[in-house]
């Protein structure tokens, strides 16, 4: 649904647009994006272009405030996790997965709930956290809020680890489509938001082996 050449391009999904034509408009450079949601637009544009090109997706445009950049990426992770959540929903029931466990040694407890509950609580909470902090300015972000991003990352990661160890098929399916866990792992490493010890999904090793054969510890 590309507009006729010559006229200004209007990047809209008008009612009646077919699913395959969604967002099918020419890319816009970050400098040309004059809206306040430019960072989100830019990230989504790069993901749509090639979701496997993680380095490009994680590369901030010049002069971009790092706090906002990290924050917007986390929002995007939460958004895309909805897709994984929907898939997990069919399989991950309270009676089968009562505990939020990744491996037998990992039992996560939620501060607000005395008993371990399922994956959703963590997901809902991290989503709510991200949602409620959306009020923050898109241009800069407070230090205190940046500090909280680490805990959001840990919560989000529990979903990945739970899916990897208990719903491997769904995890692999979704990962092949989106490279989401790969991107997330790279993201938290790049910005040092989680310690390596907590990254229990064996993605990092794989990455390391594939790319550089230097560092062996993971």
């Amino acid at each position, binding site marked *: 649904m590309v507009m006729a050449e010559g006229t200004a391009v209007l990047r809209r999904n008008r009612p009646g647009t077919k699913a395959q034509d969604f967002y099918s408009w020419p890319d816009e450079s970050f400098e040309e994006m004059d809206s306040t*949601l430019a960072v989100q637009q830019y990230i989504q544009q790069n993901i749509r272009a090639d979701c496997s090109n993680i380095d490009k997706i994680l590369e901030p445009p010049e002069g971009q405030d790092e706090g906002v950049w990290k924050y917007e990426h986390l929002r995007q992770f939460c958004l895309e996790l909805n897709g994984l959540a929907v898939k997990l929903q069919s399989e991950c029931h309270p009676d089968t997965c009562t505990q939020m466990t990744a491996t037998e040694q990992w039992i996560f407890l939620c501060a607000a709930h005395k008993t371990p509950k399922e994956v959703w609580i963590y997901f809902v909470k991290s989503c709510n956290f991200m949602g*409620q902090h959306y009020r923050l300015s898109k241009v800069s972000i407070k230090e205190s809020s940046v500090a909280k991003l680490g805990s959001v990352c840990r919560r989000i990661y529990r979903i990945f680890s739970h899916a990897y160890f208990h719903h491997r098929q769904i995890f692999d399916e979704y990962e092949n489509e989106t490279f989401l866990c790969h991107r997330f792992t790279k993201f938290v490493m790049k910005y040092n938001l989680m310690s390596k010890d907590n990254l229990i999904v064996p993605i990092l090793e794989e990455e390391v082996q594939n790319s550089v054969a230097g560092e062996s510890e993971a």
Partner: protein
Amino acid sequence: GAQGWCRESRQIPGIVGRPPRRPQPERGAARAQIAFLQGERKGQENLKKDLVRRIKMLEYALKQERAKYHKLKYGTELNQGDMKPPNYDSDEGNETEIQPQPNSQLIWKQGRQLLRQYLQEVGYTDTILDVKSKRVRALLGLSSDASEKENRNQEPMVNGTESQMKENAMIGKPDLTDSASLLETFKFLENAAADFSDEEDEEDIEGREKTIIDTSTIVRKRVLSDSSEDRDTEEALKEFDFLVTSDEGDGESRSSGDGTDWEKEDQCLMPEAWNVDQGVITKLKEQYKKERKGKKGVKRPNRSKLQDMLANLRDVDDLPSLQPSVTPPSRPSSSRLIEHEINRTDEVEALTFPPSSGKSFIMGTDEALENELGLGELAGLTVANEADSLTYDIANNKDALRKTWNPKFTLRSHFDGIRGLAFHPVEPVLITASEDHTLKMWNLQKTAPAKKSASLDVEPIYTFRAHNGPVLCVVMSSSGEQCYSGGTDGLIHGWNTTNPNIDPYDSYDPSVLRGAFVGHTDAVWGLVYSAAHQRLLSCSADGTIRLWKATEIAPALNVFNDNQELGIPSSVDLVSSDPSLMVASFNSGHTSIFNMETRQRVLTLESGVDSTISSSCQINRVISHPTLPISITAHEDRHIKFYDNNTGKLIHSMVAHLDAVTSLAVDPNGLYLMSGSHDCSIRLWNLESKTCIQEFTAHRKKFDESIHDVAFHPSKCYIASAGADALAKVFV
């Protein structure tokens, strides 16, 4: 400066041409009246003080507001006299400002001296007066009538129950006729009475100085304190008069601007944070005046008698009336008996949603606003009796009274643009559909104060996940127990809406998900629920419109436009005037009416477009007027068009926005149209005149999209908008 002018102007007339006083006592009557009045006055002083205080607070708030507005507009401080917060315990603050003219002062001193001499000569102390008062009352044959009235009047204040209120209101009528006839008797004295009250003001000023030196009688002090309060209230009212007239021009333009402030301040009870609506003030003032009138006439018939007496003393019956507002009333005011404390919320509720009157859905909500504003007890002042509000001159104050929508909540939990909105039919509950693959349910009554701003936060109470891709539209069933959503995955999901008071962290409940209506092969863009047949209509990018049985998950009952002769449907709605018809708009620019049972195309509305498909004639939304056979379409080319459903003719076409019009909604009574556009603004239109009555900027742009949907709550005073900026906003 402004207020000073006010005061002077109202004092001067009272002074000019006043003859010297020649006391000609009819002593017996005079004593009796004074004594009686004292007893009554005690009871009323507190009430009056309270009212004065309220008015002062309001006045102060208004000053603050004007200063703030002035500063914002011109960048300088507004010099408007004293900006001291009102002193609730004494009236000194205002007294000191008044500077009576020296000439009149002299006359007054003389007059006062004479009066004082007279009273001292009479030699009445409090006790004597009290003792005698009863006897005199009996003599005058007034006692039973008056005291009985007093008792009744006090009842609701003491007990405050509503049943007693009503009883009282009913009793009030015969009382009134009594007092009215009583007033009739004193009618010829009205002029003098009016003058007297004015005179009192002057006396009061001096009185403040003199009482320190002279030990005037208690009687006198009482008279003074009473009158001073009267004067204050009158003064306050006058100032409101002035403010309203001077601000009339601004009022209109301010209304939209004020909106944003309200969001911040609606929780705030501090007077300086009040954002006072002109209409509200006008109304408050009118009603307060009426209350006062009523009070003077009914509750205090004896005041006029005192005035009468004093007028006799002074021999001034030939003076003209100078203060029409003091003229004893011709009308009952049981309203003053509603002593502010009684279940105000209930009353506001009733006023906000009157069942019969359509207009008041929009116009009658100022009371609700006041409540939101945190005017607190002041709101009680406006909840006067219905007779008052009905006689209030609506024609002249239409603009002031008209409902102005103001932002109330911002719903912030979605991660991507919100495409659709649906209100619960009864509850203050909203469901939003977003491109982040989820729907969220919000309880607008379950709010938490936000940390930083003064606005309220609403957290989603439930997140519906099942769509594999952006969710584009959502509708609720007429019971509110189910909702349906359509997405780019081509599925329509049916949901059991959960209890609005659910714990948001409660575990996932599979029973919420009812199942998917499978049939469409591409994105589902439009949904509409038919309460009459419990049917569901959907339109999809696959080119078809499908009719489903909403009660069970089953294949579609009917498929329309499967040959795509009209293009791809973009929006669909039921024709309200004929439940067997539906209207659908297409990206080709066509709009057609179909019979849902026979699948026939009944009528194609005159579109004026050729059949070549181009995005410029795209129609984004079609809705049917809730009561009239009119279809309204929103166009990508900035137009809104109105069609006659019977003839298919174009009734009206207008360029409604600066950019593509994306969404339309008509209020439940069919009087107002709301439109949302990618120009970031929402506009409200009077459907009769097709004029824009309010515009507000609501959302920011993401790419070239801004507002995707707008909605009126079917029964409550809420509107909502959905934005590409991942926010939904609720206005009240």
